[in-house]
């Protein structure tokens, strides 16, 4: 079963410039992808994404970033709200983030846990699936 999630806090802008910083970058020119390793941080508008390793796929046959695969424990933050999971895939062109395995969404004191979260940055809405558990602390705002 799944739960629709509205996290206005995680709302971002998928057409804003993307900044990726890391210790190392290895570009496979022939197959058109690049692997960032070592404390990789992505910034796009208010959104921050951090992971030990990220693989960036180039737009097929064109220029620009098509998709970012973050692996090895991903944290996605935007102001006071954060989401964590083992892996995440952010498709820049559509603005959709898919976080998988042990997803934990926190907003202030409330948390939602599940196995898979599909989230649209531009609209700020998403859907959590897989053993969803919600911990709601009354009287703690929203």
């Amino acid at each position, binding site marked *: 079963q799944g739960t629709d999630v509205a996290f206005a806090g995680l709302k971002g802008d*998928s*057409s*804003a*410039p*993307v*900044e*990726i*910083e*890391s*210790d*190392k*970058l*290895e*570009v*496979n*020119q*022939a*197959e*058109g992808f*690049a692997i*960032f390793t070592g404390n990789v941080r992505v910034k796009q508008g208010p959104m921050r994404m951090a992971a030990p390793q990220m693989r*960036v796929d*180039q*737009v097929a046959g*064109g*220029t*620009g*970033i098509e998709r970012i695969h973050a692996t090895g424990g991903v944290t996605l933050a935007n102001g006071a709200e954060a989401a964590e999971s083992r892996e995440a895939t952010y498709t*820049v*062109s559509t603005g959709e983030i898919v976080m998988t395995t042990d997803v934990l969404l926190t907003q202030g004191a409330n948390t939602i846990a599940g196995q898979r979260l599909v989230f649209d940055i531009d609209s700020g809405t998403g859907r959590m699936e897989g053993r969803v558990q919600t911990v709601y602390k009354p009287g703690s705002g929203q």
Partner: protein
Amino acid sequence: MAARHDNLHSRLVAWLKVILPLAALVVLSTLFLVSRTIDPSDAIPLAGVDVEDRAREPRMTAPTWAGLTDDGAALTVTAAEARPGQGGDSAPSATGLRARLETPDGSAADLVAATGRLDDAARLLHLGGGVVIDTTSGYHITSDAMTASLDQTDVKSDTALAATGPLGQIEAGSMRLTESPDKPGTYLLGFGGNVKLIYDPKQ
């Protein structure tokens, strides 16, 4: 036969025998007046500067060097001018350097550098004075100095560099173009020393 000299034909021939040689003499003499004066003293036009400079310092102009690395990449290097090493620094140096590295996977990288030094002992080509690399996959990298290995495909730069490419603009502290260790035949362009990439979807 000698008596009848007075007919027209004989008189005409007699006169012509005098006039024609005289005319020839006149034409011949004026020939030298109208011809261009040839001044034997001015020698073949040769720039004296180059000759003295070359005598003092031997060099080659527009030398080319070509080689094949162990992994089968063709490296050709051309320069505007190359000088043998003098004094302590025995490595030959060159200016206005252009190098092209064609890797077996079909891609290629063109290097342009202001100066170059061939270190034959270490089988390295040091490029300096501002180096630009253009790869067929669309990467344009500018850096201060770079070292290209002559034996295997290994172009690296340890100075800060800026690059633009299909993924966006990249700033990094170092760069290295080598064959991938675990997948021979594929070539990786590595950046190190806190990399920063900026990509603007709106462009």
